[in-house]
C-alpha cells in the first residue's frame, strides 16, 4: 500500500459498486478491484506478522502487552476483517442475484448476463440450477419455476416472436413458427414468455 493510503478504501469502493447498481441487476465483475482488496489483506497479514516477530524479539508477551506495536497489530487485524467482510458481501450479494435469476431463467443464462460474471460465478450458477433440478426431481418432477403468479385464465393467446420450430406442447406437436399465434396453457407458454420468445396477446 502506498504511503498515506487509507485502509479499507478499496473494500468500500467494491461495496459501493454493489449498492449503486439497480436492485436485482448485476454489474460487470470487477476483477481488478477485487484482486487489489485481496492483495491488501495479504499485506496487512504480513505486516501483522512482522509486528508479532518484533515483539517476540523484544522479549514481550504478544498476548498481554499493550504497546504501540500491539495496537498496530490490532489495526491490521481489524482492517483485514473489514476487507474480508467487504469481499464476502460482494460475492454473497451477487450470488443472491444469481440464485433469484435461476428461478426466472432456468438453467441457461442470457448472454448479456453471462458476460458480466466471473468464471467462478458461472460455475456457481450451474451448480445451483442443478441443485434446484435435483429437488424438483425428488418431488415427483414438480416444476417450481412455472406458475409464478396466481392463475387468471388457464389458457392464454400468445404470438411467437422467434422461430422455435416444431415442439411438443402438452401431448401434441405444434409448429411454433415466428409470428404465429397460438392458444396455449399458461404453464406451457410461461417459460417461452420469460425468455422473451413469445408474447402474451391481451384483449
Amino acid at each position, binding site marked *: 500500500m502506498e504511503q498515506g493510503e487509507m485502509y479499507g478504501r478499496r473494500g468500500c469502493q467494491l461495496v459501493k459498486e454493489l449498492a449503486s447498481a439497480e436492485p436485482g441487476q448485476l454489474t460487470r465483475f470487477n476483477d481488478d478491484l477485487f484482486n487489489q482488496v*485481496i492483495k491488501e*489483506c*495479504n499485506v496487512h*497479514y504480513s505486516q501483522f506478522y512482522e509486528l508479532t516477530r518484533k515483539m517476540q524479539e523484544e522479549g514481550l508477551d504478544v498476548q498481554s502487552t499493550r504497546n504501540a506495536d500491539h495496537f498496530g497489530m490490532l489495526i491490521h*487485524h481489524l482492517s*483485514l*476483517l473489514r476487507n*474480508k*467482510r467487504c*469481499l*464476502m458481501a460482494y*460475492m*454473497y450479494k451477487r*450470488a*443472491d442475484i444469481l*440464485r433469484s435469476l435461476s*428461478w426466472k431463467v432456468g438453467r441457461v443464462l442470457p448472454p448479456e448476463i453471462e458476460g458480466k460474471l*466471473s468464471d*467462478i*460465478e458461472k*460455475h*456457481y450458477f450451474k*451448480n*445451483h440450477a442443478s*441443485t*434446484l433440478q*435435483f*429437488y424438483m426431481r*425428488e*418431488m*415427483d418432477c*414438480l*416444476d*417450481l419455476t*412455472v*406458475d409464478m403468479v*396466481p*392463475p387468471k*385464465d*388457464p389458457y392464454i393467446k400468445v404470438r411467437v416472436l422467434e422461430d422455435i420450430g416444431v415442439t411438443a406442447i402438452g401431448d401434441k406437436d405444434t409448429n411454433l413458427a415466428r409470428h404465429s399465434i397460438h392458444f396455449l396453457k*399458461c*404453464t406451457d407458454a410461461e417459460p417461452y414468455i420469460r425468455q422473451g420468445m413469445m408474447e402474451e396477446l391481451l384483449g
Partner: protein
Amino acid sequence: MTTASEDESAPSRIDEEDESLKLESDVELLKRAWQNEKGAPEILEYQSALVRRTSQQIHLMEDLIEELTKRGDDPLIVSIYQMDLDRTQFLLRSYLRIRLQKIEAAMLHVAKTDLWNRLSRQEHNFAQRCIEDMGSHMDESVLSKLPSGYQSNLKQSNASDEDDMVPEPNLNTFVFCKRQNSIGAIPLDDSGDEIVDLVAGTHVCFSYIFGLLLHVCALFSKPEDGGHC
C-alpha cells in the same frame, strides 16, 4: 381450524362430488399454510401430510379432466375443473417455492438451529447442497486467497468466539394476523396502562416475535383455547 380429510388412501373410484368436497377443505388448509409461510420471516413446520394429500388429489383431478375431455363433456364444466386444478397447483408450487427461497436466504442459520427439524427430507437435501455450493463458491473466490486464520466461512477469524458471519432472518418484522380463538386482554407494557383485547376474528398487527410469545402464553394459560395466527 377446518377439519382435514382423514382419508389418506387413494380412492379406487373417482366419486366426483366427494372428491371436490375433499379438495375444498384441503385447499383451504393449503391456502392457510401458504399465507402463514408467506407472512412469517422464518421457515415454519413442513405440512407433509397436507402436501402428500394435495399432490394425490392433483393427480386425480388431472386424470378426471382428461377423462371428461375425452368423453366430450361440456367444455365449460371442464374448464371450471381446470381452473380449480390450476389454483391448487399454484398454491402448492408457491408454498414449496417460498420455503426453498427462505432456505436459500438463511441456509447456514437453518442448518445450525432447531429450524432444521421443520424441513422435509427433500428440503434437507436441498439445504445441504446449497450449503456445499455456497461454501465452495466462497472458498474459491475469496477464502482460499486470504491468509490462514481468516479462511472460515462461518467466523471472521480464528479469534472469533462464535460463528459471527451467519446471517439470520429478522424476527422483528411486523406481521398481520387474524385471531381464531379469544385469548382475552394482554398488557402491552409493564405498567398495564396499554392493553390489547384479542377477540376471535379480529385482525392485529405486531412484530413476529411478539406474536410467538403470545402463542406460547396462550398455550400455557388456557390449554383448551390454543389457536394460532
